[in-house]
């Protein structure tokens, strides 16, 4: 079976890229050299690539850390891009890194 290809658009940016149904969205973005979603562990664990699917685009997800994606969040279309597989064109709102903590006494600008 040939995997279908879909367009992934990042809200509040001009960024859009193609992702096939058998590939996770984060990997598709990275392999095309595109940006927009922060990249962390790529294993569904750290929550850095948290996104919200906006609208009614269909998708499926792999197993993700429940700590990073509680059930209520998941019902609202929140998921981790590294475990997100499109089944339609998707619009994503990036929630990721700026919700994360940094080392105390350090910030990314200073680092």
């Amino acid at each position, binding site marked *: 079976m040939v995997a279908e290809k879909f367009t992934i658009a990042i809200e509040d940016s001009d960024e859009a890229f193609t992702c096939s149904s058998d590939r996770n969205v984060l990997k598709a973005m990275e392999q095309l050299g595109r940006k927009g979603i922060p990249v962390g562990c790529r*294993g569904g*664990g750290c929550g850095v690539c948290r996104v919200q699917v906006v609208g009614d685009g269909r998708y499926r997800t792999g197993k993700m850390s429940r700590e990073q994606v509680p059930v209520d969040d998941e019902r609202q279309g929140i998921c981790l891009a590294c475990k997100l597989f499109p089944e339609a064109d998707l619009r994503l709102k990036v929630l990721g890194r700026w919700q994360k903590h940094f080392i105390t006494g350090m910030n990314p600008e200073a680092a």
Partner: protein
Amino acid sequence: MSFTGVMRPGHAAIRVLDMDESVTYYTERMGLMKTDEDDQGRVYLKAWDELDCFSIVLREADSPGIDYTGYKTFSRADMDELVGKLEDYGIDIEWIAEGELNNCGERARFQTPSGHSFELYSEKKQIGDGLGRTNPNPWPEGLKGMQVYRFDHVLLYGPNIIETTKIFTDVLGFDLTERVLTPEGEMNVTFVSCSNKAHDLAFVEYPEPNKLHHVSFMLMTWEEVLRAADLMSMHDISIDIGPTRHGITRGRTIYFFDPSGNRNEVFCGDYTWYPDREPITWTAEELGRAIFYHDRRLNENFLTVVT
């Protein structure tokens, strides 16, 4: 013999999202050996150069991270003495019965102000390295993947690391080997040793408690680190950074992630620690070079990606 008290990091209990995928990763890719499985579904693994029957315990859960890290004492008497010192220091001990982990003796568990759980234990069944203790060969044939020699240390993120570090240095007899000072002169990164390794445990000050930065495994040579990196690309393992060098500990390293997003490290070549050395101090403005000696800058992943 001068080496008593806490000898080494003896086990790390890691949560994984998918057990089958994780066992394949830790055995075929990392090169650990599966030695046991218990009725709770936990899987026990060891590296080839370790004699005790396990050093890594995997537990399937809905969020990754670390359950606890166990340190082995030289003797039961040493363990009891150290437990007494912990209690005198005001730390509550939870006793975990012998056999709760297969083939492991009684464990004394305690919490640190960083939110992490640690254990002391003195007994674990030795099954050896397959080479024997008489006229052994230098390494066994048939090793897989990165062929790591041993579980070496963990780096943990959490609050109150000054207080937490003091438990290890002032109560359990560890030495502070390296530290980073903030511009205000407070320690926000600490490395401690219970042996003559440059680190047996490390902490980074972080607002969220009980976080895992990485579980580290030792290799012997830079060539082995490079070969490990090759295997990561062959098998599409998520690489964080490296191969590169740390300023802290001088280790030659690569950071990468297990299938659940827990960071792992393989490294070689830190220095020999002796207790008559002064700790090494890194200043905040040199933190980039301290962590990644070649890049000389911290990346956001080092600062934020934890499980």
